[in-house]
C-alpha cells in the first residue's frame, strides 16, 4: 500500500525531483512535500475547486490527480501565478471588490477565473457565474467575484 515512485516535473518554473508514495495525490504533494500551501483541500473529492491548479496550462483539481501522474508536466499553483504576475490584475480586482473573505476558496477561484479570462471570456455575468460554478465559496455569495472578473475584462458588464 505504500509503493514509492520517482517523479520529475516542473512546479512554478522550477524543476522538482522527488520520491513519492504512489497513492499520494498531487495536492498533498504540493502542500506537504513542497510546502506550497496555497492550494487548499476543501473536499478531496473533486467537487469544491479549492485545489484548482494548472497542469500543462489546463486547470485541474489537484485532489483528483496522483502526484505521479504529473511526471514530466508543468504545474503552476497560485504561488506561481502571483510570482509571475499573471494573477496581478485579478488580485487587484479581488481586493478592490472584496471578492474574498476567508480566502480559502480564493486560490482556486483565481485559477478558474484566469482560465475564463485567458480563454477570451467576455464580461457576461451569467457566463462568468456558469464558469465559476465548479468553485465553491461559502463566504462571499459570489457577486463580488463576478464583479472582479468583469473589472479585469473591462467593458460594460452584461
Amino acid at each position, binding site marked *: 500500500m505504500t509503493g514509492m515512485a520517482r517523479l520529475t516535473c516542473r512546479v512554478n518554473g522550477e524543476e522538482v525531483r522527488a520520491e513519492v508514495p504512489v497513492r499520494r495525490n498531487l495536492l498533498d504533494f504540493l502542500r506537504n512535500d513542497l*510546502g506550497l500551501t496555497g492550494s487548499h483541500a476543501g473536499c478531496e473529492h473533486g467537487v469544491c475547486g479549492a485545489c484548482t491548479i494548472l497542469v500543462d496550462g489546463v486547470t485541474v483539481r489537484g485532489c483528483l490527480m496522483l502526484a505521479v501522474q504529473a511526471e514530466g508536466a508543468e504545474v503552476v499553483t497560485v504561488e506561481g501565478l502571483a510570482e509571475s504576475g499573471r494573477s496581478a490584475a485579478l488580485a487587484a480586482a479581488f481586493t478592490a471588490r472584496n471578492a474574498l*473573505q476567508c*480566502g*480559502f476558496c480564493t486560490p482556486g477561484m483565481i485559477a478558474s477565473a484566469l482560465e475564463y479570462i485567458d480563454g477570451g471570456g467576455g464580461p457576461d455575468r451569467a457566463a462568468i*457565474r456558469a464558469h465559476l460554478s465548479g468553485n465553491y465559496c*461559502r463566504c462571499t455569495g459570489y457577486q463580488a467575484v463576478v464583479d472582479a472578473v468583469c473589472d479585469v475584462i473591462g467593458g460594460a458588464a452584461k
Partner: protein
Amino acid sequence: MTGPATIFDRPNRYIGTAEPRADAARLLQGRGRFVDDIQLPRMVHAAFLRSPHAHARIVSLDVAAARAMPGVAAVWTGAEMAAHVTPWVGVLTHLAGLRSPPQPALAVDVVRWQGEPVAMVVAATRAEAEDAVERIEADYDPLPAAVRMEEALSPDAPVIHPEFGSNLAWERRVETGDMAAAMAQPGVTVVERTFRFGRHTGVTLEPRATVMDYDPAEDRLTMHYSGQAPHMMQVVLSRHLGLPEENIRVISNDVGGSFGIKIHTYGDEIAVGAAARLLRRPVKFVADRMESFMTDIHARDHVVTGRIGVHADGRIAGLEIDDLTGIGPFSMYPRTSAIECNQVLNLTGAPYRMEAYRARGRVVFQNKNMMCQYRAVGHPIAMAVADGLLDEAGRALGMDPVVIRQRNLIADDAYPTTSASGMKLDDLSHQKTLAKLVEVMGYEALRADQAAARARGVHRGIGILSMVEVTNPSPMFYGIGGAPIASQDGATVRLDAGGALHISSSVTEQGQGTNAILAQIAAGVFGVDIGRVKVTTGDTATVPYGGGTWASRGAGIGGEAMLLAAHALKEQVLEVAGVMLQAGVESLDIRAGKIVDEATGAERMGLADLARTVYYRGNELPADLKPELVATRHYRVSDMPFVFTNGAMGAYVEVDTDTGFTKVLGFWAVEDCGRVINPMLVDEQVRGGVVQGIGGALYEECLYDDQGQLLNTTMADYLVPMAAEMPDIVVAHVETPTKTSILGAKGAGEAGTGGAPGAILNAVNDALAPLGASVWQMPITPERVLRALGVVAD
C-alpha cells in the same frame, strides 16, 4: 469639549469608508496561514474510528492490530482517553431546567450518534493513521435509536439517557397577554400552519482543523486553532486536560470560514490535545469532508406550529408558537444546544406589536449528530414563522404583504420599547427600512411584472420579510449562566518608535474583515495613515482578554474597545507633545501621523520624532513626565442584554410548476446595523449571509434514514449554493446608531442568513397561491413543490 464622544464631530478619514482589506494580498498570493498549512518538527497525525451506528453498545474494541501498523505512534480507545480528559456537561444555569449528561471526548461503552468518535490513532502521516483505523476491530450491539424528533417524546421511544427518564432536554414557555381573549375577539381571523425546517450545516470550506503542540519543559500546550473564541478554548482545554489556563496558548491565524461551526467543543479536538501531551510532540487533526458532514454541528431541525389572529384591518391580535427541536444526544458544550430554541421564543414576532404572545419550546435528545449554534441562531426559524403567518393572514384578508407589515411594525418613534416576548428594543427603524426596501426593489414594478408573467403562465412570487437581529451581546447571553465566555473585549494601541501603531484586539478574524475595521477605527480615531497600522488578533499570549467573534459582536464590541483605546492613546500622546512643544494640549491635534496645531493644521512635530524622543532620549524630557505610549481599553454592553438591529428583505422568485424548481430572480436587503464602519465589507457580509440563507431555504439538508444513518456525506450529495444559481443581491442601509456606544455600530454578519429563508418562503408561496398550493417546509426542494401542487402524490 474633549473626550471620545467628540470623535464624530470632526471629519474622519477612515470610519465609514470602503477601505480594502490589508489581509487580502496574502490570501491572494497563496500565503495564507491556515491550520493545515502548519508543519512542525516531529508532528504526527490523528484519525478517528467513528461509530457506524446511531445507537449501540460497544461490546469490544480490539486495537492490537492497529497498534502494530506501520507509522503508528499510539492508539487510544474511549475508555483509555477518559483517563486523560474529564467529561463536560453542556448546560447553563440561566436556561433553567436544561439537562445533559457528562460527555466524554471519545465514546465510552455506548455510542449515541453515527460519526461519534470511538477510538483515535496517531501516526506519522494521516494516510497511515487511516490505514490503522481500518484495522481496529469493533463489535457493537445495536440499540433502538430515537431518530425523529417528533417521536422522541412518545412513551415508547427509546430513552437515550435512562437516568433522565425521557428525551426531553429543556422546555420553556413565554406568555404575554391573554391569548384566548385576544383570539376570541369579534372579527379576528385565525390562521394556523406547521413549519418544518430541515437540518443543515455550515460547510466551512476549510474543515475543522487543529494542531496541538506540547512542550513538556514548560508544561505548555499551544493550540493552533481554526475558530472564533481563543480565550474560551483556553479555559475549555484547561478544565478538561487539567493544565493551568496560563500554560495554554491558543493561536488563531487564518480561518477558512467558521459561521459558528468551529466555536464549539469537539471531543476529537480535545483528544488531540491530550495526545500531544502524552506523546510530547505536535499532533495535527484535520477533518475530512465526510467527517465534517457527520460531526460538525448541524443547525436548525425544528417543527413549529404557529397560529396568528388578525383583526379585519390587519392588526395582530395574537401570535402563538410551539417549537420542537432535536439536538442530538448531548447539549453542546459550553454554549449549550438550547440557545437556538431560546432565540426562537425570544425573537418570533419581535418586529411587530401584538396584544398577546404565547410560545412553548421543547428541546429533545435524539440519535443524530449534535445540533448547535450556527450563523443567525434561531433567527431563520423565528422570522420565517412570524412572517410566513403574517403573509398567510394577509392572504386571508386580501391584504398586500407590505400593507399588513406597515400596520403591525413597531413605529420608529416608539423606542425604547419591549417586544411581546420581553426583549428590550431600542434604536430600530422598521418603518423606514421597509419603505426603503419597497423603493429599492421597485415593488410596484415587480408586481406588474409578476402579473404579466402570470398571464403567460409563468409563476413568479414576491416575498417580503421584516426582521430583528441579536447583536453585541452583553453578559446576559452566556456569562450569566456560568459559561467561560467573555462578553467584554479589549483593545491595545501602541505607538512605536517609527511612528506606526501596533494594535491588538481580543476579537478575531474569519474573513469578515475584523482586522481591517479595527485598523480603520484606530487610524481614524488616533490620526495616522492606515498603512502604518499593524493588527494582531487571535493569540491568547498577546492580545487583551476577551470573547472573540460571535453573535455579530466583532465590530460593535471589539470596535468600541478599539475606539476607546485609540482615543486614550491620542490623549496620552498629546500630553507628551504639549510638554515637548510647550503648548496647551487643547491647541494640538494628531492628523496624518503628525502633531499639528488644532486651529490651523500646521505641523508642529512628527509622531516618530515624539516617539523616538520618548523611547531613545528620555533624558530630554522633564523628570516628572512619565510618558505612556500604549493604551488598553475594554468595553462591554451594560445597559441592554443585546443590541438589536433590524432589516427588511425582499425576494423575487420563479417557480417552475413542471419541474418544481425555484429560481431566485432577485434579492434585496435593507439593513440597519447602526454606524457602518466599512460599507464594502458590510455589504459583502450581508450578501454572503443572504446566500447562506438561500441555501437553507432551497438546497441544504442533512438527510437521515430511519436508522439514523446520514445519507449525504459528500459535497456532491449535499447541495450548497453555487455561483450560477445565485442572483445579484442589492444591499441598502438605514443608519440608526446604537446609543449604547460612541461608535454606534451594531452587528451585520448574520442578518442575511436570518432573514433570507423567510423571504424566499414567502415568495414561493406568493407564486403558488393562485394555484391553491403552498409549502411550509425548508429546504423548498422541487419534490416538495411538486407535492404541494399535487403533481407528485404522498
